[in-house]
């Protein structure tokens, strides 16, 4: 087995950025500290969005989770909270993420399997029963446009509990690229209509729930498709631009009135320094874009509040305990990169949803990083590293370059509609597979240090196979007991609002309060706008 030193290979980051053997002062002598790096808590925020960072407030330990029925997910969340989790994040099943009901005949095999099944406000009441959602924010991840019903159901549930929406913390879904390209959902509507609905949600939340982040620009699944770190950045900023431009076009809110509501999600992949540099570059890019292009003055418009998830595609089925190590390195990178919130995968990622044991280890991995390693004592401790600052710069430059390609392809909407984006993703997928199969990208246990397959030693998680029957029965009961006249009235209003261009959220909110289901709401916009299928062939 030849060592890295013996092979005559070019050294590059996983994104393909060439790296030198050693970096020195000459590599960063073009950098101006105040202009390019800045102290933490000050523009351009390269070093962190808060002056005190983890001394002031540690990153939230927020595990994306959910499975089977709302009751079982409530139990799971209570358990996570007892284990020391400091933020909630709901993984819905794919039918729910798509805004499709559990009794839709197409959904049968997928209900409750990849996440929790939720169809009406009643399910939200169950999922969050007894949980301190007013103190500990929740991230509710749903695809667009289902995020409208999901957000409305969450808000309606909170109001029923007597909580004040104006003080409710948390984050919604709405990532367009995820739902339309990286991990396409069912029953999509055309991109420009999707954008309109998402911006309706943003605009409405700014007035009704100012502490809530309705937009979660979520690059996790984009990165997981195989694109590079700088492409992940470029797509993020192309999407930010699309939302901002759409809102500004409406001439109703100024940049500083809505940009503070944005939140961001990124992946944390395995090239250690590149991922740290990526977060730093992201902060600087947001600061530049919001102030220079959009004239933002409120720092909250250009502070990149980011949640990060360790990259599932870097974990392997072979020798699964190796994933414990990969996840620990990725957690370390996330912390050194200055994330505000973090999900650490469980080591059985390539096999099943987390078991209690693997979940606990994921939580403990974060807790050990926070409590024992002392990395949280100092803000952006790697700043000034010749390598890291060079890499931050290089990633930023590549990201802006790739972003101009997205613009040339028609921007977010044009690139989605034409399938340009999907073809770019395919190129990345194929490239990554070639790197792995040729051995150019080494993965321990897969193309080096390979061992014969052994039976998986751990427990395997299984979702409740009765979930679909339970939810179907619940839906029957709800449809029988609710005032169907009120439901129809709300849906008719929604249709009128869709057609007239009025903000859809008030009618969605009305609908969910009458126990209208996810699917009944989705059906209206699918009827009005038609179903769009991603152009992937």
């Amino acid at each position, binding site marked *: 087995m030849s060592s890295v030193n013996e092979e005559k290979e070019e050294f590059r980051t996983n994104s393909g950025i060439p790296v030198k053997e050693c970096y020195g002062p000459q590599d960063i002598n073009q950098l101006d500290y105040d202009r390019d790096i800045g102290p933490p808590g000050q523009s351009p925020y390269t070093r962190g969005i808060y002056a005190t960072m983890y001394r002031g407030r540690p990153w939230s330990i927020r595990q994306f989770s959910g499975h089977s029925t709302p009751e079982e997910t409530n139990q799971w969340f209570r358990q996570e909270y007892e284990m020391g989790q400091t933020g909630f994040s709901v993984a819905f099943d*794919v*039918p729910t993420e*798509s805004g*499709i009901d559990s009794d839709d005949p*197409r*959904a*049968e*095999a*997928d*209900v409750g*399997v*990849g996440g929790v099944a939720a169809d009406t406000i009643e399910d939200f009441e169950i999922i969050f029963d007894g949980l301190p959602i007013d103190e500990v924010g929740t991230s509710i991840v749903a695809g667009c446009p289902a995020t409208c019903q999901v957000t409305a159901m969450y808000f309606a549930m909170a109001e029923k509990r007597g909580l004040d929406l104006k003080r409710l913390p948390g984050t919604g879904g709405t990532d367009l690229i995820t739902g339309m390209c990286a*991990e*396409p*959902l*069912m029953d999509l509507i055309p991109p420009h209509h999707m954008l309109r609905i998402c911006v309706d949600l943003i605009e409405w939340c700014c007035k009704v729930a100012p502490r809530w982040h309705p937009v979660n620009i979520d690059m996790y699944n984009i990165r*997981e*498709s*195989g694109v590079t770190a700088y492409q992940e950045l470029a797509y993020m900023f192309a999407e930010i631009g699309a939302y901002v431009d759409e809102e500004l076009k409406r001439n109703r809110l100024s940049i500083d009135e809505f940009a503070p509501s944005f939140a961001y999600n990124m992946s944390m992949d395995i090239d250690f320094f590149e991922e740290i540099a990526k977060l730093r570059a992201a902060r600087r890019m947001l600061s530049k874009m919001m102030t220079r292009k959009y004239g933002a003055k409120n720092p909250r418009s250009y502070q990149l509040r980011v949640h990060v998830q360790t990259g599932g*595609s870097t974990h*392997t*089925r*072979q020798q699964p305990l190796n994933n414990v190590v990969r996840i620990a390195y990725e957690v370390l990178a996330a912390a050194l990169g200055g994330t505000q919130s973090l999900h650490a995968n469980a080591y059985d990622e*390539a*096999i*099943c*949803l987390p078991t209690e044991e693997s979940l606990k280890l994921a939580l403990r991995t974060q807790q050990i990083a926070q409590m024992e390693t002392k990395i949280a004592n100092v803000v952006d401790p790697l700043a000034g590293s010749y390598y890291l600052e060079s890499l931050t710069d290089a990633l930023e430059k590549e990201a802006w370059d790739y972003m101009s390609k997205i613009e040339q392809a028609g921007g977010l909407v044009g690139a989605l509609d034409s399938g340009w984006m999907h073809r770019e*993703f*395919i190129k990345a*997928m*194929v490239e990554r*597979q070639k790197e792995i*199969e040729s051995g150019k990208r080494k*993965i321990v*246990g*897969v193309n080096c240090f390979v061992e014969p397959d052994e*039976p*998986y030693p751990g427990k*395997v998680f*299984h*979702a409740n196979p009765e979930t679909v029957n339970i939810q179907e029965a619940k839906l029957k009961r709800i449809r029988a007991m609710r005032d169907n006249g009120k439901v129809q009235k709300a849906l008719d209003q929604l249709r009128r609002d869709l057609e007239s261009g009025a903000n859809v959220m008030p009618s969605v909110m009305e609908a969910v309060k009458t126990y209208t289901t996810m699917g009944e709401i989705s059906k209206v916009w699918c009827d009005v706008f038609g179903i769009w*299928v*991603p152009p*992937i*062939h």
Partner: protein
Amino acid sequence: MEKQDNHIRVLIAVPGFDGHWRGAMTVTAALRDAGMEVIYVGNQTPEAIAEMAVQEDVDVIGLSIFSAGYMRLISRVLADLKAKRAEHIIVIVGGIILPEHINQLKEMGVAEIFLPGGRTETIINFIRENLEQKMVL
């Protein structure tokens, strides 16, 4: 007589709802690169997959699995193919399949299961070898 690659027709589909398509597309690209004709149909119901496979007169159906509800989904594809008398179509499965289900799936009629972390040439070789065998029979 080996079936020429450019006559091998494959349908690649993701049964059910799960939107992860990286595995399916990576295999699609590799099979195309190897000279096969691949029809990628993305997310479809099991019944639609069987119908499309018959309409397109494919030799192989490749099902890409990320959803844990795969037993129901795969069995519905197989049942539909049987009802359409299309059991000559080789069904292969790739993705997240639990080891405990592998034998059961093969008994149901899945020709082979390709787990994560494998090489695309394994799939290509399997298809070529199995179609060659079919031609001989």
